[in-house]
């Protein structure tokens, strides 16, 4: 294995945490107006950025040992979480097509895992 399992776990956990960052950014973006103070006093944008920072610490720790080309695609687990949160918090529709996309991403991550074990 060229990338240790611990690095993979760190990146996957970081991705799940990062998916919450996207939710805060979206709800912050919804609250924006033309005036610049709507950015400065927007706590949702601030929390979104802090959440990304936390996820980045786990990502850097994971990235210090292992392959970029393997670990970075695993961040896609976050997209699946974002889909779930988008449904829960913004009531965006979850279609069968989206569920197929989720399935493909999960299969892709499993393939990456086997590809890593090949070495």
């Amino acid at each position, binding site marked *: 294995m060229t990338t240790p399992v611990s690095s993979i776990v760190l990146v996957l956990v970081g991705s799940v945490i990062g998916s919450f960052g*996207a939710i805060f*950014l979206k709800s912050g973006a919804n609250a924006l107006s033309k005036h610049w103070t709507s950015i400065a006093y927007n706590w949702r944008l601030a929390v979104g950025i802090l959440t990304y920072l936390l996820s980045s610490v786990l990502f*850097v720790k994971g990235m*210090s040992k292992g392959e970029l080309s393997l670990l970075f695609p695993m961040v896609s687990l976050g997209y699946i979480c974002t889909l779930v949160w988008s449904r829960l918090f913004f009531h965006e529709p979850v279609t069968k097509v989206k569920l197929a*996309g989720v399935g493909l991403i999960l299969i892709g991550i499993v393939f990456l895992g086997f590809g890593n074990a090949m070495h």
Partner: protein
Amino acid sequence: MSSVTALPEVRIVDADKRRRAVLIVIFCTLIVGVAQYLIKLGANQLAAHHSNHGGSVSLTTAVMGIFTNPSIFSGYCLYAVFTVLFVIALRDGELSILYPLISLGYVWVAIIGVLAFHESMNPLKLTGIAIIMAGVAVLGRGGSGK
């Protein structure tokens, strides 16, 4: 009748805004590629200077590294640029369409991994990356159509 004829104009403006949002996000994927290169470069430096019995660096080293390692810091500054552009794009589009578009960055990152860091590539890894990209593209389609 007048309200019916006014509707298509509104839709055209919306379509233009959505198209612009998609273009902004595609530009963002190039930023992601460069940012990931810088972050990996810095993370390797951290591992070389603070080796933890051959394991990954400590959480403290990782936190410090984000702010004190020039390479990692620049990488995340690019992510700040990325975030501002992404927030602008999000105002005109659905999160569930725009967020997955960032996956275009996998192509740049895979190329960078092999060329700059001499990482291994095998059929399983390539298939995995391709399937993830397909999945992400399907997710995007699922947002526009019912």
